[in-house]
Structures are given as structure tokens and as C-alpha cells.
């Protein structure tokens, strides 16, 4: 088996320096649409193009509701007046209702957080991006994040997918079995708002329909670094970003 040891050593260190430094490699994030100042007519036509109701008409242009955006690119492709697009990845936001003191982690959680991943009905994209957090590029263990098989050991419940009818009971049971303090991180447009699956006879929309959510990570799917940012926000090691990008925000205008 020594050949594998040598192979491992030869490969060297691949891990990103994030969160100590910014990660700039190509292809780490699909980016996000940004709010834009636009003439009314253009704004209206863009709003009409969005199949997810993620674009909203604002007095001076278009606002983006990232909770709903499903990365379909229809506001930037096939139109003569595309919306801006930013290539960021720190997208996670703290939900105001989740600032309950009882749900905050103390210093004991600084270097060791156990995470239970529950898929409540996604397409496999968010789940696959969560899986990437264990690959050598992201290696979340170095930051003290570990996946756990049992809710009894879990501090964070990480939920991907729209809330399907069949996953209501397992999700509820898993959450109830977790000791306090516990936090819920919802990952991806479907877990936030139901995404393309929406509300239907099978899907109740996002996970917030059943559980209190503390951190939301938008994206369809959010790339691994955005999920990592979400975990860092959940334990208070990174400040949250904002989900609603309005034309009046300075954040929203920083398109790239």
C-alpha cells in the first residue's frame, strides 16, 4: 500500500486559503445576478424573463431576490440589455429571527462543529456541492467542521432541497433529536423558497415551513465556498452577506 502514501505526498497541498485569504481560482463559483439601474421598459422586460420571480421592479430599475434565483441565466443571455453579474461566493445570510440567544454557539464550538446533512428533496446539485467540502480543495476538516451520522451528536443541521412531503417526518425527527444549542443552515434556492419545485402537492416550499432557519445560503446550487461561508456564519466566524440586492444598495451596484 506504500504506493498510495507516496501518491498522496506527491500530490501536495491543494487546500484553498479561504477564509484566511480570498480564493481566486477560475470556476469556483457561477456568480449571481446583481441589481441594476435601468429604464422602466428594460426593467419590465427583464422581470418578465425571470421564471422564478426573483426579479422585482424597483423605482429606479431591478432588484434581485437571491432567495428565489435559480441560476437560469435568462436575465443575461438572449437579451440585448443583460443584468449585471458578480463573481462572488460569500453569499450566506443570517436570518433575523434566528438571533435568539439560546441558539447561539459559545466559544466551545469554535474549533469543532458537527454537522448532520439532510436532503429533503433536491436535484443532487446542492448535495454534490456539500460533498465537495470534503475534497482536498476545500477540506472543511481543517476548519473544525465534521459530518456526523447521528443527530445526537449534531450541532448544525444542514438542509438541502425543497421540503417534500415524504421528508417531513424524517426531518422533524432528526431536528428534535439534536441537543441544544442547535442551528439550522438552509442551502440552495430550493431549501430557501422551494426553487423551481415551488409549492405543490408534494413540496411545501422551503425548510423554514417546518423548522426555524438560522442561516440561508442562496444559489442553485451555491458553490462549495458559499456553503463554507454559511457554516462560518452559523458559528459566528464570518459576517453574513445580504440576500436582497436592491438598486439602492452599494453592494448591489458593485457588479463585476
Amino acid at each position: 500500500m506504500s504506493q498510495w502514501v507516496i501518491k498522496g505526498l506527491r500530490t501536495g497541498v491543494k487546500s484553498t486559503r479561504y477564509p484566511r485569504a480570498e480564493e481566486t481560482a477560475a470556476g469556483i463559483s457561477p456568480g449571481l445576478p446583481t441589481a441594476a439601474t435601468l429604464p422602466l421598459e428594460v426593467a419590465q422586460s427583464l422581470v418578465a424573463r425571470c421564471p422564478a420571480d426573483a426579479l422585482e421592479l424597483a423605482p429606479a430599475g431591478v432588484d434581485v431576490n437571491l432567495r428565489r434565483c435559480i441560476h437560469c441565466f435568462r436575465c443575461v443571455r438572449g437579451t440585448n440589455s443583460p443584468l449585471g453579474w458578480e463573481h462572488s461566493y460569500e453569499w450566506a445570510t443570517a436570518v433575523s429571527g434566528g438571533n435568539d440567544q439560546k441558539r447561539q454557539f459559545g466559544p466551545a464550538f469554535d474549533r469543532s462543529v458537527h454537522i448532520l446533512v439532510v436532503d429533503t428533496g433536491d436535484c443532487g446539485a446542492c448535495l454534490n456541492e456539500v460533498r465537495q467540502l470534503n475534497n482536498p480543495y476545500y477540506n472543511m476538516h481543517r476548519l473544525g467542521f465534521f459530518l456526523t451520522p447521528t443527530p445526537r451528536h449534531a450541532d448544525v443541521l444542514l438542509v438541502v432541497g425543497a421540503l417534500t412531503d415524504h421528508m417531513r417526518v424524517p426531518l422533524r425527527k432528526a431536528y428534535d433529536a439534536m441537543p441544544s444549542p442547535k442551528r439550522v443552515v438552509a442551502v440552495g434556492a430550493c431549501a430557501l423558497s422551494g426553487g423551481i419545485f415551488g409549492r405543490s402537492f408534494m413540496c411545501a416550499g422551503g425548510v423554514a415551513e417546518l423548522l426555524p432557519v438560522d442561516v440561508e445560503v442562496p444559489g442553485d446550487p451555491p458553490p462549495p465556498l458559499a456553503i463554507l461561508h454559511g457554516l462560518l456564519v452559523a458559528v459566528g466566524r464570518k459576517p453574513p452577506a445580504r440576500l436582497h440586492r436592491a438598486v439602492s444598495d452599494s453592494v448591489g451596484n458593485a457588479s463585476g
Partner: protein
Amino acid sequence: MPAERKQVLDEVAARWNGRVQLSPEDGSESAYRLECEPAELSEVCNWLFSDLHYSFGGLVVEQLTRWELRYVFYGGPGAGWLHVLTHLAPSDYRVPSVSRLVHAADWHEREVEDLFGLVFEGHPRLGDFVLHDDAWHEGVAPMRKSFDGRQPVTHRAPDQNWKPRQIVEEAGAFLMPIGPIYATATGPVHFQLETVGEDVIRVQPRLFYAYRGLEKIAEGRRAEDVLLIAERISATSAFAHSLAVCQAVERICHMEVPPRARALRIFVAEFERLRHHVAAIEGICESTGLAVAAAQASILEEDLLRLSCVLTGHRYLFGLGTFGGLTINLDDSACNRAAAQVREVAEKLSRLERMLSISSSFLDRLEEVGHVSAGEAGDFGLVGPIARASGVSRDMRKAQPYSGYDQIEFEVPHESEGDGYARLRMFFREAAQSVRIISTVGQAVPGGQVRAPEVSFRPGAALGWVEAPRGAALHWIRLGEDGVVDRYRIITPSFANWHGFRLAAENFAFQDFPIILATFALSVHENDR
């Protein structure tokens, strides 16, 4: 008409002497309809499947002015598609089961029973399937037109004491429940493993925890929105499924896809297959606990995800496919750069394969484990690399070529052992073929437009198909006026292969179970839809 098809049609005419009506399927040169009474149905299907060795593609049920049941079969290029149709009066809901004779149709009929409320007489096992018995009222049939899919359903309180049926009754028999929540990031599926001692005697996967009702929520939406749904059936095959939908709609609307778009579609589809196979290889290494090999493969997967993003803007290729072509042009230099990077990945992959092939403790876990014979694979209608590992070598790209695959040189490898190691080798060999196709196509992408002019929708129905990374995927679409979807049927390779998974997992030691599961590279999401 090719001689082979003519011969089959002549024989149908002779055997059933007017009781089976023959006609060409609308808008398709390669498909024929065989219409018969319900009483004749299983005999006709069985003849195609068992005697002529046509593959069973799937069952499409539509609630038109009367019930239409369409059992879809396909053969090689000369044989084309045969759709066996039967009709029921709107108030009638009983039909003889085909799956007594054609086992590949088993789960298709169970799904239809659950979702449409039709009864397949003589079917060996109906009941708890798509709609879980502990949560749903008997008699709810969500796929019927009268059911409003946009409203939430009011349930009885879920039955917390619901227990699966235990079949094995030997002394020492034990039922082990696993899932739907796991230690790692895994799709939601529940297993009931019935064990005696070390051995797993019976494997019953309980699926559809991720059932999102995609076929239902597509109804009444515009055809473009179905593309969004198709991409999100299973993200690891997003482009393949969107391509199948595109081809169905292009067939209905008589759209010509420009040569550049056809070539780029192949380029991207093979890229997706490569990434899927690398992830499957990683899963197999991980299941055996070979951490360094798993890490090596996961580095390559991330490299390919990043490359997807650089090339198309999205790590899972969302938003790329559209009717008549692609939404963006991939310029020649970008394709060349991508092809060069893919070749680098291929080199690393073949080094990994060499190292694995001499790691005896790894091979011990795979060889002669999880065995599926060619006969079983055929009976259960397994597809893709899993079927080819057992010697069933049908591949849509060769059997029913699309998008110009018939113009390209490549091989469809197959193995004969049908064990875990044969499946691992299939992933490596197919990945190498994908790299070959990417190189060939990338070198000479024809010039011109990447998208046909604006689509004008026409009412009609058609089948679109692809060889998705996991095997044959069939999408049936019926459009009404103005491109509004009337029916969308999704037939996926994972659905076929989950059906046959127990063949491999039963009668092996419990500790082999996760490894056998990994060698099948199944997707819960693709199965559940």
C-alpha cells in the same frame, strides 16, 4: 424502410391478423405504432421483448379523450422504435399487467397504479411505492387531470408506527433499517435489509423521499420551463436530460438544429459523462475505504466542475441547453483549451486506474462481488454502464443515434463478468471514450450559428432520448397550443437500475452492501423525479 423493421411489421400483420393495427408514429421516421386491445397487450409486448430482444424503454400513460397506454420498445438502428398502444374508456381503469411476462415493466406499472389509479390485473406486487402508504390516503391519484397539483394535499397525520413488510422468516432473520438520513452527503433513500447472520438475504429499497412530482408540476407550464425542470431531475446529468427534452420539442416543432450546435451538444454531453464517471469512480474508492484514491478522484471531479463553470458559466451546466441549439456559443479556442485540460484529466485517470488494478486489497472487495448475469440484466431492463458491465451492450448513441453521433468514431465498451470490478472498469473505459469524442469533436466544430431562429411551437407529441451518463433516458412531451405542456413523462436510467439493484446486493455479506451500492452509481434524485 429498413429491411429489419419491415420484416417485424410483416410478422406482426401475419401473427395477429388485423388485431394489431400498424401505423407510423406522427413526425418520426423511425417509430411505428402497434395498436391492440388490452387482451392482446402482454402477448405483443412479450413477443417483442423475449423473442425479438427489443429493449423495453418505458411506459407512457396519458389521459386523453380516453386512457392511452404506450409501451415503448427499441431495437438497433435498423429496427427503430415500436410503440405498443392500447386504449381504455375514460371510466375504465383495469388493464392486464404486462410485467408478468416482461419484468422490465414491473416498476413502470407500479408507478402508474400509484399515480394514475389504474389497476394492472395480475401484477405480482402493487401498493406502497411512489406515494408512501403511511402518509397518503388510499385512492389519491395525483397524475389524473382532475387533480390540482398546485395545491397542498391535506393528509391524515403520518402513521408513526408504520412498518415495512418483513419477508424472510428464518430463524435469526433480522430486519435492518438504513436511511433516509446518512452519515455523509447522500440522497434520501431508505433500505430494509433482511439479514441472516452476516448475509443480506433480501434488499428492499424504499425510494421516492425526493419525489417532487416533476411530471405533474410541468403540466400547464410553458415548454421552456420544462427545460428548467429537466435540468433539475438529477444535477449530475442535467445537460443530458435537457438535451432529451430539446430533441422531443424540436421533433414536434420541426426545428433544424444548426451543425455547430449539434457538435457542441455532443462535446458538452461527453464532458458531463466524463465528470459523472469520475465521481462514480470516486464513490467506489471511498466505499472501500481507499482514502488516497478517493481523494485523487475527487480532485479530478472538482477540476471538471471548475472547467464546466469556466466553459459554460455553471458548474452543473444549467441554463445551457435550449430549443434549436445552445444559449451561448462556446468558441473554438475555449473548446480547444477545455479539450486539452480534459486530456490532462484523462492521463491522471489512467494512472489512477493502473494503481488500482494492482491494489489487491481493493480488488478483493470488488471482484466476484455484487454479481449480475447478462440474463438478469436483460430481464430487469438494466441500462447504461451497469448493463454493459454484464454484457448487455446497448447504447442509445449507437442504437438510435442522435445529434450526429453516427458521424463520430467511438466504441461502446462492454465487459462480461457483471461484478463490482467489471462495473468499475466500465467507468474507466467509458471515460476514456468520452475523452476521445471530446478531442475529435473539439478539433473540428463546424462554423455557423449555435442556435436556430426563434422557435414557433406547434401542438403535438414526441419522444426525445439520449444516452445519459447512467444510461438510456426517454422524455415524452405533449404540447398543446402556444407551447403549453399537456403531458411530460420522464423515464430515467436510475429508475431502471434501482429496480435491478437487489439482484446485485442480495446474498452477499452485509459489509459488501455499501460497496455494491457504490458500483451501481445510482441517483435517488434521478429515480424519484
